[in-house]
């Protein structure tokens, strides 16, 4: 982009459920916003937005009507999902609850080129991530609150009400935690990379059994702007298998298990490093830290795509087989299980439906955070949707693969935050979780 343009792709917000009210300007102009820990800018539609339908369907900020407005004018673009938002920065007082945050830098959007913002019930987004991912170096609102000494403690906390019949959607608390909304005490983990609220998470257990892939640790970000949980395909396939969720059948995966399954098994028994198994077989190359698909074939695009799929399938098969070996299963059972998982691969970015009548028979799942387990019951990780008067059930787990070094990565959205009251401690750069009440 241009020298004064910052472009940061964001999540899309179509599947967001929770939103609240803020006001900007003097006298206050009200806006409905998503409080989003997965981004860091505040933006609302501008009265100068003329050519986007979304702007006419939502509240628009009129700077001329605000006595406290200060011109900035710097332009910016934010890429998200299927389109972009463009606009310019302004400064004004922002009213959050009864707290006035003075001279907050925010974006007045003049172009919203996606159906996301036409459909959305919200006018804009209030980012609660770190300044490191903020477009135009605009401070997130918590930073302004801190600088203006408006808070008793440098924290904010989320309680999301998962009770489908309750009128209260949830509560965002600045300056502390509301003891009414959690049980026991919080388990804190340090923020490992600023930008998103990112920390190191351990294994995912299914019915108490390890899924292996993140046993050595995976990155995780807490994102209130996402409804579901998203994580590595190798794990989500195991979840799908355990809960009877539909999946897509991967022929490459089946071929790898059929042709190389026994060899993988033998190499693992012979104590070959799991990271090098697929290299030894010849389906991947080892770049020193992890396996990558064979670059030699990259001159032929089609072949390269094929080798990518075989390498990925092989790496997943290694995790699954290694896991089963730990449980002393027989060779036949192990290969059969791996073959079954090849039929449960989640569609990328897609949701998997499950039988609503089987929820009570599904296992508990548990994330390991700071060596403690954070259990999700089927009632918590299965999401019920209304469609044409009928209830349908989907798994709260979606596949989302980010390669190293940034990944593998979990995104913990509202499904997790609904079960666990979450504290975002920007004073001590840590995140706390306690059972939600």
């Amino acid at each position: 982009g241009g020298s004064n343009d910052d472009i940061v792709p964001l999540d899309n917000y179509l599947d967001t459920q929770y939103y609240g009210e803020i006001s900007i300007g003097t006298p206050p102009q009200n806006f409905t916003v998503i409080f989003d820990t997965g981004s860091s800018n505040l933006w609302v539609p501008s009265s100068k937005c003329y050519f986007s339908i979304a702007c006419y369907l939502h509240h628009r900020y009129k700077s001329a009507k605000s006595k406290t407005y200060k011109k900035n004018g710097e332009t910016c673009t934010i890429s998200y999902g299927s389109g972009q938002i463009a606009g310019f920065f302004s400064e004004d007082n922002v009213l959050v609850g009864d707290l006035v945050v003075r001279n907050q830098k925010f974006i007045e959007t003049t172009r919203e080129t996606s159906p996301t913002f036409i459909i959305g019930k919200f006018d804009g987004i209030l980012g609660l991530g770190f300044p490191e991912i903020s477009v135009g170096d605009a401070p997130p609102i918590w930073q302004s609150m801190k600088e203006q000494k408006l808070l008793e403690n440098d924290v904010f906390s989320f309680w999301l009400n998962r009770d489908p019949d309750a009128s209260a959607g949830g509560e965002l608390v600045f300056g502390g935690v509301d003891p009414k909304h959690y049980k026991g005490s919080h388990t804190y983990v340090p923020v490992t990379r600023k930008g998103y609220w990112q920390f190191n998470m351990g294994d995912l257990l299914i019915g108490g059994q390890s899924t292996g892939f993140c046993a050595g640790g995976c990155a995780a970000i807490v994102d209130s702007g996402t409804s579901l949980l998203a994580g590595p395909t190798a794990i989500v396939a195991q979840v799908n298998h355990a809960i009877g969720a539909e999946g897509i059948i991967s022929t490459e995966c089946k071929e790898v298990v059929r042709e190389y399954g026994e060899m993988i098994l033998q190499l693992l028994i012979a104590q070959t490093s799991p990271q090098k198994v697929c290299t030894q077989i010849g389906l991947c190359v080892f770049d020193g830290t992890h396996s990558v698909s064979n670059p030699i074939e990259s001159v032929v695009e089609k072949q390269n795509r094929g080798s990518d799929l075989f390498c990925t399938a092989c790496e997943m098969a290694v995790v699954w087989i290694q896991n089963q070996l730990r449980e002393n299963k027989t060779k036949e059972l192990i290969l059969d299980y791996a073959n079954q998982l090849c039929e449960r691969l989640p569609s990328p970015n897609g949701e998997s439906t499950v039988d609503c009548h089987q929820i009570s028979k599904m296992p508990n799942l548990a994330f390991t955070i700071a060596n403690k387990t954070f259990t999700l019951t089927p009632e918590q990780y299965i999401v019920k949707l209304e469609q044409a008067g009928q209830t349908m059930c989907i798994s709260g787990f979606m596949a989302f693969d980010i390669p190293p070094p940034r990944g593998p990565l979990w995104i913990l959205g509202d499904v997790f935050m609904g079960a666990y009251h979450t504290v975002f401690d920007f004073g001590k750069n840590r995140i706390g979780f306690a059972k939600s009440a």
Partner: protein
Amino acid sequence: IRSSDGLLRIDLNKKKLDKETLTAAKLARQEGSHLLSSAGSRQYL
């Protein structure tokens, strides 16, 4: 509203999820991943 305990509480509203919005979200994400892959070496999520 800021209360006697010094906390600033913001009520959140909740919108029920439905299949149509999830499908639209999926399409948006797929579009988004095309954008990201075409962005080449950008280190963004």
